[in-house]
């Protein structure tokens, strides 16, 4: 049997990991849309022709608002509207108002909105189906409406710390021209624009069951605000309709009354607008929009027609009633609202807008103004295109060579993208300029005008489509290459694991003549592989992804029961089984499995995670209802228990040894510090900003870091080295029966002792750190997870030959995943504990709080991974030793190969499988709301496995090298002395 040397094994594993990292980053880069972004805010330059190398260092930003406004008006030549009322009806499908497929909406809905329908019928209002981009949830949609840009998914996901919209947007532009703004309704607006509003009254969308009060709270100020004239922009955001949908779906009996209520509001606002206009308060536009639609069940978030079908309704653009009212399908994009409003109100179009001026909205302006607006829109999009397409830049582009005197012409546009865009743009520009010259002589015809408009729209539509596709399109090559790389690394790692297992098995067979079928498959081993399969299959269903915690709890407890069955197989001491003396070992195994089962069940009941069943009762809710004092009591008790467990396990090594005393003392110091922090400061969990508390936490972090690294470095240096005929008399249950020559040549016993202490130090410190960072209710789960680790260590130290190493390591990994969900995590980004990420922070730092957030979220997987250090020390692998072939490389391989490879392998299989699932699901309804967040979690788990495995490998290799060096020194000095 050929065996891989240690160096080769390491090399292959590292190669596998590197390939995986490359593949993963390629995939992430290709799959998640990255927003094309121009930095900065549009200013006066947006009223000029886009040129290359245009240096605009004018200081128009310093102009006072009213002068800026005048300047904009002068530059654009459009006399804008004066006031805007933006009425957002959350979740209103455009179908309710405009009908579908050229059909008017059903009679019941028509009756529910009589006023709006009459406005539509006589042409005062113009309605559009505004197609929203997924994810169809409120905040990204509002951003799209005001900035005209399609946000990337990562942009949504990584906005934990600041939700404020910092990109160029309509409200910012309005603010810069001195508008006064009022916001009534959903407080999302306040999160997006924290300081822009003169007056505001935010309502929360938290109480979904409430459909009445939430809208009443908005409308109560409406009459007052309408009679005032100190604002320019009034935002009304009504949440009630969305809540109605969430409760009863589209056809809820509450829907018609709610629509009627909205219609009454439209009537009230419109009447007041007309009255004010007669009073000469300027032109007011009422824009009724919805952020997204809803499915039949009233849900939203995905990309089906029902969800993306949102409304854009403009009332007041023209006052004259026209006869032709038809239910034509005017489909636009939601992003088109931003440039339209910007142009109507005479502010620069936001820089990253990909929308197009909605046709029909400029009918009440003059032809000249309409063309100007289209020109401005084209200039803005052309600038954005220039940033995206280097080929459009100045040198080799014909765009700059502007007009020749051939007069208006219309050339066929084809060729590559750059040429086509250039050509379309030029067509429109040339036509427009010739029109301008004709305009002076008043000799233009209506046909000229409409051909220019058509030319502009041809360019605008092409540019806008290309730009938005660039956000949502996926580069196929990149994705394919990434997936292939991940598959390759998955294959490499699996082959390595298989190879190592086979080799160990072979070795074992040679050393012991076991007919026991050690190399055969057992039920639990098959189940370990079955778990991977089940998890992969379950990844394909969005409900299962949402409720993943059930899978892990169910599978780990089944695994526990299977292990129990396996132990039961051995229970009676049969005559043929001489190898395992006594039932004591089996007894310990059975007890530890019972501990695993009980603590696992308690962990399962602690948090009712997931998405659909969060309302069910669980222990944490019950505790929180019992009051903060009880929570604190429980927290203190579990803290004390953790500290005493730490001491107890350490003392197994024998408390007389000096280093044990030192390590124990450091536990005590650290434990007391944490305890004190919990006692004093965690009372007010919300306000943690008091400087002493922060200082205290910082001290704890420092002590933790120093002692952990100190233990890791110093312990192998001070570990007493013994050279004797008998091996060192360390704890009773490590039945090291190593051949004495190996024992004396290599520091096996010493290594095991030192790894035991270091590993336990890691585990304890991690637990104590988690006590500090996690929410108070999570103290008991931390304790239970520690107990689980201890129980599995006891199990594996007694299982000996009966249980294969890879099974136990994979089981530890699974327990880690179950623990992850037991701490209240889920596959939605909402469960991440953001508050904890600021403990001990004196100033804001994205990196540090990101690290803390990672530590809190991945508490359990990392804990189980670093417990591998202790696992290596307690698992009896001496049966793999053959005195002749033993060398350092082989010893390290025995100890380290599987504990490092198995987590990497399992994780790579899960990662690769989920990547493929995500790729297959890219058009699924829930790709942004369910699958993509889960993918972020999977990626983070991968990072966590890398960290855990590398720290385990580092610890073991360092300790081994130091101890081997010291042993050799001591040996040579001993022989010298003799």
């Amino acid at each position, binding site marked *: 049997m050929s065996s891989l040397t240690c160096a080769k094994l390491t090399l292959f594993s590292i190669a596998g990991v590197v390939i995986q990292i490359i593949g993963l980053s390629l995939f992430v880069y290709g799959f998640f849309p990255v927003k094309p972004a121009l930095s900065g805010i549009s200013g006066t330059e947006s009223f000029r022709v886009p040129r290359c190398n245009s240096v605009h260092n004018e200081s128009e930003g310093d102009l006072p608002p009213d002068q800026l406004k005048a300047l904009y008006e002068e530059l654009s030549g459009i006399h804008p509207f004066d006031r805007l009322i933006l009425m957002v009806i959350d979740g209103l499908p455009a179908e309710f108002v405009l009908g579908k497929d050229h059909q008017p909406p059903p009679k019941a809905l028509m009756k529910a909105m009589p006023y709006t329908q009459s406005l539509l019928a006589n042409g005062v209002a113009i309605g559009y189906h505004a197609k929203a981009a997924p994810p169809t949830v409120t905040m990204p949609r509002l951003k799209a409406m005001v900035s005209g840009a399609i946000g990337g998914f990562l942009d949504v996901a990584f906005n934990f710390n600041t939700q404020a919209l910092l990109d160029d947007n309509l409200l910012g532009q309005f603010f810069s021209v001195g508008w006064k703004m009022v916001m009534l309704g959903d407080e999302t607006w306040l999160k997006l624009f924290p300081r822009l509003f003169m007056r505001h009254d935010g309502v929360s969308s938290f109480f979904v069951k409430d459909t009445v009060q939430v809208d009443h709270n908005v409308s109560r100020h409406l009459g007052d605000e309408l009679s005032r004239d100190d604002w320019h922009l009034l935002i009304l955001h009504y949440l009630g309709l969305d809540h109605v949908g969430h409760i009863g779906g589209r056809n809820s009996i509450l829907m018609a009354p709610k629509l009627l209520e909205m219609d009454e509001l439209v009537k009230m606002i419109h009447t007041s607008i007309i009255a004010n206009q007669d009073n000469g308060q300027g032109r007011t536009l009422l824009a009724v929009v919805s952020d997204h639609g809803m499915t039949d069940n009233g849900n939203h978030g995905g990309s089906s027609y029902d969800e993306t079908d949102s409304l854009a309704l403009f009332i007041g653009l023209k006052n004259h009633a026209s006869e032709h009212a038809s239910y034509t399908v005017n489909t636009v994009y939601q992003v088109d609202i931003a440039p339209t409003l910007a142009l109507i109100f005479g502010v620069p179009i936001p820089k990253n807008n990909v929308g197009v001026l909605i046709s029909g909205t400029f009918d009440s302006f003059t032809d000249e103004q309409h063309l100007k607006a289209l020109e401005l829109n084209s200039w803005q999009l052309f600038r954005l295109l220039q940033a995206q397409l280097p080929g459009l830049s100045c040198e080799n582009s014909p765009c700059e060579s502007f007009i020749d005197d051939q007069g208006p012409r219309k050339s066929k546009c084809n060729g590559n993208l750059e040429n086509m865009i250039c050509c379309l743009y030029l067509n429109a520009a040339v036509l427009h300029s010739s029109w301008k010259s004709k305009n002076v002589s008043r000799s233009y015809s209506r046909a000229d005008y409409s051909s220019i408009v058509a030319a502009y729209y041809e360019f605008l539509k092409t540019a806008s489509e290309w730009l938005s596709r660039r956000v949502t399109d996926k580069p196929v090559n990149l994705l394919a290459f990434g997936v292939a790389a991940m598959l390759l690394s998955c294959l490499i790692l699996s082959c390595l694991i298989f190879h190592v297992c086979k080799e160990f098995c072979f070795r074992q067979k040679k050393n012991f003549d076991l007919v026991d079928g050690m190399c*055969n*498959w057992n*039920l639990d081993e*098959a*189940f370990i592989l*079955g778990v991977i399969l089940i998890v992969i299959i379950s990844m394909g*269903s969005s*409900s*299962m992804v*949402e*409720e993943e915690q*059930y899978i892990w*709890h*169910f599978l780990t*407890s*089944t695994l*526990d*029961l*299977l292990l*129990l*069955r*396996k132990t*039961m*197989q*051995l*229970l*009676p001491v*049969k005559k043929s089984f001489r190898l395992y003396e006594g039932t004591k070992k089996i007894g310990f195994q059975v007890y530890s499995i019972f501990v695993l*089962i*009980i603590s*696992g*069940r308690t962990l*399962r*009941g602690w948090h009712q995670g*997931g*998405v*659909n*069943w969060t309302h069910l009762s669980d222990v944490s809710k019950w505790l929180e209802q019992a009051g903060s004092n009880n929570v604190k009591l429980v927290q203190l008790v579990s803290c004390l228990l953790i500290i005493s467990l730490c001491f107890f396990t350490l003392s197994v090594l024998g408390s007389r040894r000096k280093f044990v005393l030192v390590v124990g003392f450091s536990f005590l110091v650290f434990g007391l510090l944490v305890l004190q922090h919990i006692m004093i400061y965690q009372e007010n969990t919300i306000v943690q900003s008091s400087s002493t508390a922060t200082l205290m936490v910082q001290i704890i972090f420092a002590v933790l870091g120093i002692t952990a690294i100190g233990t890791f470095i110093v312990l192998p240096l001070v570990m007493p080295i013994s050279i004797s005929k008998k091996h060192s008399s360390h704890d009773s249950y490590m039945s090291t029966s190593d051949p004495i020559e190996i024992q004396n040549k290599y520091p096996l016993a010493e290594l095991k002792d030192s790894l035991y202490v270091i590993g336990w130090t890691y585990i304890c410190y991690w637990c104590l750190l988690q006590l500090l960072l996690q929410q108070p209710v999570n103290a008991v789960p931390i304790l239970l997870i520690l107990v689980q680790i201890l129980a599995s260590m006891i199990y594996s130290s007694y299982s000996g030959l009966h249980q294969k190493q890879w099974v136990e390591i994979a089981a530890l990994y699974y327990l880690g995943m179950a623990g992850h969900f037991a701490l209240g995590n889920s596959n939605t980004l909402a469960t991440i504990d953001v508050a904890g990420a600021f403990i001990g922070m004196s100033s804001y730092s994205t990196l540090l709080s990101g690290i803390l957030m990672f530590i809190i979220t991945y508490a359990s997987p990392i804990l189980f991974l670093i417990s591998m250090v202790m696992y290596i020390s307690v698992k009896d692998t001496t049966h793999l030793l053959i005195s002749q072939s033993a060398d350092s490389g082989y010893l390290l391989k025995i100890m380290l190969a599987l504990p490092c490879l198995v987590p990497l392998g399992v994780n790579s299989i899960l990662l690769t499988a989920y990547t493929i699932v995500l790729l297959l699901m890219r058009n699924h309804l829930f790709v942004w709301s369910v699958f993509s967040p889960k993918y972020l979690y999977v990626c983070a788990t991968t990072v966590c496995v890398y960290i855990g495995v590398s720290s385990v490998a580092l610890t073991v290799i360092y300790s081994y090298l130091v101890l081997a060096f010291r042993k050799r020194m001591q040996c040579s000095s001993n022989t010298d002395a003799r």
Partner: protein
Amino acid sequence: MKANATTSSVKSSAEPKPEPEPEAEISPSSPSISALEALSVHLISGLGLGLALLLANNVYSVNLVSHPSLTLLLISVIECPIVILLYSRHRKNREECSYLKAVGRGLLGLPVGALVISLGAIALGAPVGTRYFLTTINWSLLMSLFTIVPAVSVFGSSWKDWQRIFAHTNCRPIGSLDFMICLPAHGAIIGAWLGAWPMPLDWERPWQEWPICVSYGAMAGYLVALVVSFSLILVWARFEHVKRD
């Protein structure tokens, strides 16, 4: 007992055949069962279950979805005499154990088995609480009838036999009696285990409640296993016959 949750007969057959055990050791005193007897046992327990479901539905007009607890109790009450009386006839060690004693230990095994099963179910995540207490008890009575009670009636407290049937120590269950007990029991447990999978999904069906789909799974698994066990017994009898020739 739940430990055997996923023991699958398919897998066992995929493994290499163990060393042939001396047949004398397996069934020294256990009565050999003819195919006809086996058929009657299987048929009666299967039909009993069907009858119980029918009775519950038509006479008492309850079913698992509407009244899970009551229905389970009803099925258990009907199945209990059938299973105990049937299996006690095939008890091992006929010399030492009278029919009545076998029935008695079957009756004793029912609550003990139910306790073990309900603990196993709770370990796997069955809800705890007063609301579910009665349902869980009734469900585990039924499961106990499927799994433990036949074994208790036949083998009593012989640890060796128990291990052979449920943990497969040293050798696999061999012989018609072993098949008759082992396969339906495992079938019921695997069925119940599989039946638990739809529970967390958001389909909002009434049968996703705690013991309903698990009971359906268990009963389906039990019935399938009865068929498999009977056909295995037939194959086994042919095999024995050929060997004897």
